[in-house]
Each structure stands twice: as structure tokens, then as C-alpha cells.
């Protein structure tokens, strides 16, 4: 239990958060998906919702409010999954166009050669 009450937990969470964000950036770049500011904000808001859901369940269990943990956990988890799918779909916007531009550019380069 000491881990969750100590600063080590927050340190580990911070490290994981940074790794997740870097992972997202690299994955999107690899797939040719542009990531403007609004997409980062959407991803951050979803991450905040995920954190809130986990915190709600954890806090409710900690306070011995098991019914609240169950009911709230189900409600927030469902909202989290739905929001996650919608945000993931939003993140894909611009993907095809970016790939198309890349293909066009490589085509131009071939012609010039």
C-alpha cells in the first residue's frame, strides 16, 4: 500500500503519462496522421476522463462505498469507452489525405528523376 501513498506513485504516473503521449505522437507520425492542437486537446480530455473514472472507482472503494464504486464505475467506464471510440475516430481525420499527399509527392519526385 505504501506505493500508492508515496510520491513514487505520482512519479511513476508522470513517467507513464509522458511515455503514452510520446507513443501517441510517434504512432500518429508513422501512420501519416497530422496532429493539430485540437486533436491533442481531445486526447488530453479523454485521458482526463479516464483518470477521473479510475480515481472515482478507487476513491469509492477506499471510502467503503462499494455500491457507488460499482454503479459509478459502470457508468463512467461506459462513457469512457464510448468517448474513447469517438476520440479515436476524430484522431483519424486527415489520415487519408496525408497519405494521398505523400503518395502524390513521391510520384512527383519519380517524374522529376
Amino acid at each position: 500500500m505504501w506505493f500508492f501513498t508515496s510520491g513514487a506513485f505520482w512519479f511513476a504516473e508522470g513517467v507513464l503519462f509522458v511515455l503514452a503521449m510520446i507513443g501517441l505522437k510517434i504512432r500518429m507520425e508513422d501512420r501519416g496522421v497530422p496532429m493539430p492542437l485540437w486533436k491533442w486537446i481531445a486526447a488530453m480530455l479523454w485521458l482526463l476522463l479516464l483518470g477521473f473514472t479510475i480515481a472515482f472507482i478507487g476513491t469509492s472503494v477506499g471510502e467503503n462505498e462499494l455500491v457507488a464504486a460499482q454503479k459509478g464505475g459502470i457508468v463512467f467506464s461506459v462513457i469512457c469507452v464510448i468517448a474513447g471510440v469517438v476520440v479515436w475516430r476524430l484522431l483519424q481525420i486527415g489520415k487519408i489525405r496525408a497519405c494521398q499527399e505523400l503518395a502524390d509527392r513521391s510520384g512527383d519526385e519519380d517524374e522529376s528523376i
Partner: protein
Amino acid sequence: MKMRVFERIAGVVALIAVIAAWIIGGFGSQKDLSASLKRALPMASRFEPAGDGIYAGHADLLGGLDLVVGYVTITRTSGYGGPMQVAVGLNRFGKLAGVSVVEHKETPPFYNRIKIDDYIDKLVGKPHSDNFTPGDDIDAVSGATVTLTALTTAVRRGGDRLASEALGLEVSRSEIGNSHIGFPELVLILLFAASFLTYSRPLGDRPKARKIFSWVTRLAGLALIGFVLTIPLSIININSLLIGYAPDWGVSNYWYLMIVGALLPLILVNKDVYCQCICPFGAAQDLLKAGAGERKFVPPKRAVIALRWVQRALALTAIVTGLLYRNPARLDYEVFGTFFTLTGTVVQLALLGVVLIASLFLVRPWCGFLCPLRAVSDYVRMLRLWGLETARRLAAESKA
């Protein structure tokens, strides 16, 4: 062909089960009224009949004196699930002494929203001449409008009856329950009209306009019938119809409009306008599907057929149980109420969660595999087709 014969045999078996349940359920037990009378007039120690359905409450005073402290009557009104019997007590000065719900057929999560004991405490002491109108002179409870209206109508009717017949007081109010079209009825009429327009010829030739119009109708249904009124069509309405709990015309015009609007187009022109264009939960599933993208996961055909039969068996169980217990909401497993009010048990919430997440990948999973109303509409369609085929065959035979 084989499947059609099987469907018809199953349909006849279902009909026999429903009729048997209806007959057996008719032998219900009578409710003991003494506890309800005591709650409606707590200061009385015993009750004696004092007219048709009116009881005089007596209190024994010191010295052996006997005093009539008030009167109680049992009033019957129509709730969402069926009739509601309410004991209404007035003291000798024409003020409300107590109210007790003798029997009701409401869905527990909706009924529990009222917090009945606390609500009744607020009514006690008010003069019988008050209007008892939710949202006006007493508090309204969102998500339980029909139930609350049934309760307050019973209080008003009971109070007026006791005031005029037992206490000899003047009742100036006109009879409650005159036929009227209020906001809920207006919403329903407009939505049904819009749904018929979706199927109309001018829009039929323009698929894009039809799609937009259909979305507008569905979203209006979601917002108004789902979140504002919270009274979608439910298996409870079908059970009420089968049991014969038709509410008073005028008080529950909405119920009649909903039943007629949903069933009539299905029987006459084979169009399920409610499910396709109005159903708020159907719209919620469509919205989720649209939000998640147009890629569809199509389950195997055999699994779809098996699940469809499970859906029908569940619907039949809900109807038979409702008829046996003479309670339309006895086995209500629909998740609409949980979705629109976010109240329910852990199991209901979990089922709702599964349905909502499945909606991201499947087209209307609730409607396709669980909704009892879909099973009812399939049954009506099967009967319609059977009837039409029989009529055509008879016509051909008579010609020959």
C-alpha cells in the same frame, strides 16, 4: 418455408400461453385495506363503512366517548403501468389527513423516484380544495411525471368526494380529467406526423432529404420522448393493453396515442414507424453508431436467428409473467428507464453498458437482439401476413 411454418406453430403456442396466463392471473387475491386506511387517517383507531367506498374513522376518547375524526375513501386512477389504488383521508375540517398507496403497477425505479413517504408528508395538512398540481402548488418529480400525476389525481378526486359526500362541503372544482391535449400529446402527434412524412412519396424520391428528415425526427424523439418526458413505448404498455388496464380517456391520452400510433401503421401498412423513426433508445444507438463510424460488424446469420428466438422467448416470458401477476411491470428488463434517468440496479446498469458499447460496432443491438417490442412487432407482422395469405387463398377458392 420451413421457418415460416415453425414461426406460425410457435406463434400459436405463444397465443395459448398468453391466454392461459390471462385466465390464471384473473384469480388474484383481494388486498387487505385496514393498514392502508390507518395510514390515510392515523388518528382513527377503527373504521366503519359510511357509504359507497367511504369509511368513517372513529377514535375512542377518554370516558368511553366515540368521535368520528375523519373519512377515508379508496380512489382508482391510471399510472404508467396500470391502475393505482390510493387511500385518501380527510379530517373533519376538510384537510388532508393522510394518503396511502394501496396498490400500484409502476416500474420500481420510476416509482421510487417519488420517495413516496416524504412526498405524502408534504401533502398532509393541505385543504382538499387545493389543486395538487405537480410543478404548480406541489413539487414535480422529473422522470416520474405519469406516476405522480396518477397519485395527485387520486388525492384530488378522493378529497373532493369525501368533502362533498361525507363532510357536506362545497366542491367548486369541475370534474378532473376532461379530455385535453397537453405538451406530451402534442409532441407525440408531431413526431408521428413527421414519421409518416419520412415514408411519404415526396421524400421517398430524395434519399438525402429523407435521411436528414429521418435524423431530425429520431433526434427529436430522443430529446423529447427520452430525456424530457421519459415516457417511451414499453412492453409495460403492451402488457397493460393485454390485461385490460386501459387508462381513463382524458387523463392518459398519451397512452392511447402511443398505442394507436405504434400499432395501427404496423397492422395496416406493415410500417413500424415508432421503432424506425421515434424510439428514443433506437436513436441513441444510431447516434453511437454514427459517432463510431460507418464500419459495421455483421454477426453470423445463424447467431442472429438464434438470438432473435431468445429475444422472442424473453418477450413472451415478460408478457406471461405480467398477465399472471396482473402487473404489467412485473418482469421489466428494458433498459430505457435506466438510460434516460440513470437510475437502476447494478445489473440494469451493466446490461445498459454492454448494449451501449455494442452499439458502437453493431446496428441497433438492443432492437435486434433484446427489445421485447421488436418481438411484439414481429408477431403482429406474422399474424398480418398469415391473415392476408388466408384471405387471398379463400378469395381464390371462392372464384374457382
